[in-house]
């Protein structure tokens, strides 16, 4: 293995550690020795990082930023992972159906994905939130709906090529029913491309949900979430840049780590690319 590959592997391992740390912090937030993330303390508002009792300073209501970042990680990470998982489930299901069954089912599935892809991604998500009303649950629903076509396209392409292969034809000739062929001969081939797509998608979905929260369409106050923390911190950016910088940095580091791990997974599971 050359030095470049070693360096990349080291980077991916560091990224994986960073991710595990972020997930652990989010999961263990209730038992960690942190201040209450929603306790208002106006005399101590906008304290800089390193203030006594507030390692990362405080926000515009004097709430502890470290606590809000850790509690915000719960919302942001869960929102990213859950929306990516929902997109994946819908997308894979429709992709398998659209690739395996020809005729009107395929036409219906493909037209639906074409139409959804005829919108700029975030615009359609915003429109759906417009219909459902602002809020984290609706924002997640919107992003999950808008995000499934990429999986559908990916999976349908693979299923289409698999459908014509000899082992599928042989199974069919032996009288195997469709569900058996799908489960035994098609799904195993989808596993690694879908895992790679999913690992890269979680970061993208974290960015998207944070974006909607930033616009005021996702998480509503006083719940802490990285996107909405950034949005409120923006108003105090002249005097206290750290209030907006820290949540943005948190999003950046986590998404960067996810992308590094995703790239490493792709190298591992799909050496041809």
């Amino acid at each position, binding site marked *: 293995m050359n030095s470049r590959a070693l360096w990349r592997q080291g980077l991916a391992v560091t990224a994986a550690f960073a991710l595990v740390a972020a997930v652990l912090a989010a999961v263990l937030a209730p038992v960690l020795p942190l201040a209450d993330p929603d306790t208002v303390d106006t005399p101590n508002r906008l304290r800089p990082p390193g203030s006594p009792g507030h390692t990362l300073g405080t926000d515009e209501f004097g709430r502890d930023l470290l606590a809000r970042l850790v509690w915000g990680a719960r919302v942001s990470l869960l929102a990213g992972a859950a929306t990516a998982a929902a997109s994946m489930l819908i997308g894979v299901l429709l992709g398998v159906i659209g690739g395996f069954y020809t005729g009107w089912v395929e036409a219906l599935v493909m037209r639906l994905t074409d139409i959804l892809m005829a*919108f700029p*991604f975030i615009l*359609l998500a915003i429109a759906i*939130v417009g*219909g*459902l009303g602002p809020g984290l649950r609706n924002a997640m629903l919107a992003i999950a709906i808008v995000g499934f076509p990429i999986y559908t396209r990916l999976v349908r392409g693979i299923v289409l090529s698999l459908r014509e292969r000899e082992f599928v034809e042989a199974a069919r000739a032996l009288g195997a029913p469709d569900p058996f062929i799908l489960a035994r001969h098609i799904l195993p081939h989808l596993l690694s491309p879908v895992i790679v797509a999913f690992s890269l998608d979680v*970061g993208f979905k974290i960015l998207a949900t944070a*974006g909607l929260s930033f*616009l005021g369409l996702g998480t509503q106050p006083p719940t802490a979430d990285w996107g909405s923390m950034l949005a409120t911190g923006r108003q105090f950016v002249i005097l206290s840049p750290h209030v907006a910088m820290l949540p943005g940095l948190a999003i950046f580091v986590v998404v960067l780590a996810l992308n590094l791990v995703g790239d490493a997974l792709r190298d591992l599971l799909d050496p041809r690319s």
Partner: protein
Amino acid sequence: MRRYLARRLLLLVPVLVGVSIVIFGVLHLSPGDPAEIMLGSQATKEDLARLRESLGLNEPLPVQYVHWISHVVRGDLGRSLWMKRPVLPEVLGRLGATLLLTGTALLLSTVGGLALGVASAAWPRSWLDRSSAVASLFGASMPSFWLGIVLMVVFALWLGWLPASGMYASYGGGGVGDLLAHLILPAVTLAAASITIIARLTRSTMLEALGQDFVRTARAKGVAEAGVVLRHGLKNALIPIVTVVGVQAGYLLGGAVLTETVFAWPGVGTLMVQGILARDFPLVQGCVLVVALAFAVINLAVDLLYAWLDPRIRYE
């Protein structure tokens, strides 16, 4: 070419019908009574009945859709509940600002991405190539709204070189110079991720093109290196690059919503977000429809550009 254009225009019709159904659907299939959502919980029964009547909400959904779309094709997008004015002039008044921002960002990312990609391919594994690889990873991971705030803090607040927000200065502004100064930060913010994507793709397609036999022949003939890279390499690498530039155009049009909000840029995006927060359905519908239409036109333009670059596509 004319037949290809006609076919592409015809294909646009079902997509636009689908887009209009989706836009109509998402705003009408939401749980609860739209009239109540729009007027809030304080509204009286009489107000609700009047709004339902004026928006035709008592009709079945398909009838409502036909009614709405028949007005839309005549250029009537309804009246904004919040601004009490027709929607279309409001949206069109803001569209110019959005297109200016998106267009500038697209120009920046195409020119910057091509230059960076060509240079990376011409000198692979150089420091420039490696920093461009790192930049692309950063570009894909950085929230654009955060990058906007960082740039604003550094260049507007600390260094004082550029204005922080808006499209023109409140006092004494209005010239082209003023507009350009206001445009730089939002356009760079919006373009940042796309520059890196276009650069990486240009690099890989260029490397592939430069490995072809005709490039070796050109070199053997004694063509200068710049000529080899640009005339023989870049020209043959253009098709996939045009594809990704087209995809990026749509991405930029959507991403403009976030960038506009960061920099208080008076475009369709900020109008749409205000519309959602004010529960102004006709305004939101109008904004989404106009931007989706702009997106469809951009996609069409990209397809035509392909057909022009690669004649094989026309005869498919």
